């Protein structure tokens, strides 16, 4: 609270207070609030009001603060508390300064965040206060007091705001961390974590691959039909080109190709796309080699999920 007073002082100090009433009420009010639970402090203030208005207010305030300090056991504020303990000295400017200083020191720790936060909002208030009051050269401290009262009012606000700020900062940090955890590539990849979908895509794509890479010279249409159903995009284009050649050869050489998926695994899978590694055995039988020869192939197959169906959009041999 004092912290602000000190800083605000610069501004309102020029337009110091001379109206005892205004000051009194203000200070009293402040004191009242500061004391809050402490009715005694309030009483003191009102009792002293006629003679030493400004100071009474201050005293009340200081007393209240002392209370506060005692409660918090704050180190920086011990100076203040001591001052409050001696009513005789309360009114003095020196005392005021001292307590202001003490407050300053004590709150230095709070400093950075508070200063930033409170700086903007306090200043205008401090300014208002100062202008509302008249100038009194004799009482330099008066301006300080009035401003002090305002500040202490704001000071109550400060802590909740600081806490709010801390909460926001901590919350943001946690949110960022959570987003990192959930947004990582590993987390986005649902291979094996979503067992059902992993099994489904493996089953579907394995079937599809076996169908489109199996044909017999006697019936090439079945395979073509299968390809139309399961292929899309680049894979469909490539397949058409390839299959046109195969059809020519198939008839002449009585070709039969049988493909069998040995093993398939999901490299990565999201809601819409999956990449699979497929180990394939391909057996080719020809008129001159009816027993056939079997070759191994390793394919990386990319599939997209749309209209409730996985369609192969890319096939690459590895």
């Amino acid at each position, binding site marked *: 609270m004092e912290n602000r007073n000190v800083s605000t002082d610069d501004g309102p100090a020029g337009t110091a207070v001379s109206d005892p009433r205004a000051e009194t009420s203000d200070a009293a009010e402040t004191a009242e*609030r500061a004391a*809050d*639970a402490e009715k005694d402090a309030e009483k003191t203030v009102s009792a002293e009001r006629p003679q030493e208005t400004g100071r009474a207010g201050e005293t009340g305030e200081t007393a209240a603060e002392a209370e*506060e300090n005692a*409660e*918090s056991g704050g180190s920086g504020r011990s100076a203040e508390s001591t001052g409050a303990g001696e009513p005789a000295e309360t009114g003095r400017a020196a005392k005021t300064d001292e307590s202001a200083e003490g407050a300053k020191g004590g709150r230095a720790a709070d400093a950075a965040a508070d200063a930033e936060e409170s700086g903007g909002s306090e200043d205008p208030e401090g300014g208002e206060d100062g202008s509302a009051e008249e100038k009194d050269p004799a009482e330099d401290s008066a301006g300080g007091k009035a401003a002090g009262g305002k500040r202490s*009012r*704001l000071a*109550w*606000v400060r*802590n*909740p*705001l600081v*806490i*709010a*700020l801390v*909460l*926001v900062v*901590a*919350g*943001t940090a*946690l*949110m960022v*961390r*959570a987003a990192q*955890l*959930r947004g990582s*590539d*590993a*987390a986005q*990849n*649902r*291979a*094996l*974590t979503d067992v059902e979908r992993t099994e489904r895509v493996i089953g579907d794509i394995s079937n599809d691959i076996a169908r489109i890479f199996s044909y017999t010279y006697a019936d090439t249409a079945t395979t073509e039909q299968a390809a139309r159903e399961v292929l899309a995009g680049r894979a469909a284009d490539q397949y058409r080109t390839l299959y046109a050649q195969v059809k020519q050869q198939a008839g002449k050489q009585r070709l039969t190709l049988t493909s069998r*998926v*040995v*093993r*398939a*695994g*999901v*490299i990565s899978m999201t809601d819409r796309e999956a990449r*699979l*590694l497929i*180990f394939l*055995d391909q057996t080719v039988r020809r008129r001159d080699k009816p027993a056939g020869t*079997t*070759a*191994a192939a*390793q394919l*990386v197959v990319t599939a997209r999920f749309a209209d409730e169906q996985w369609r192969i959009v890319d096939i690459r041999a*590895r």
Partner: protein
Amino acid sequence: MARIIARLPRPDDPVRTTALTLLVIAALCAAWFGWSWYSAAHDEELAYSRTREEVLRTGEQAVQNLNTLDYRNIDAGLKVWLDSSTGDLNKQISGSRTSFADKVRQARTVTSARVLESALTELDTRSGKAVIMVALQITVTPQEGKAVTKQSRMLGELTRTRAGWKLSALEPASVGDTGGAPAQ
């Protein structure tokens, strides 16, 4: 908290109301984000996917290690093989270590491997077992003559040990195999 409230201006004060509102909003946000973080950090699926990545990486490296050997530095090479393996595979390697080293020294070959693609087909984090399939390229360079590069495919079983995941079985997924993994 009581002290904070005690310090607040009176209810009719708009500053107090604003401060309180901000505080409550901030507290709610912090609680929500805190929960969000907590649930993410303790999410079993997230932990599982992290393990999956770790096992995959380790498995790839181990398979590559076990397909790499330089006859000029055979002891160090076989040490890496032993470090990358556990269980039966480890026993096999250490059992045939001497004879195998002799063979490679005679053949004077340098074998290196590069993993082209890999995927886990099984991962049981409880029992600490996983099955990896790997497409890899193996290059064998004899002392004289051209290097020979071939595509290869392998199935490996990984087992969790105190020193991390290690290969406990590794076999080529040879043609005509009915798809039985080493694990099965």
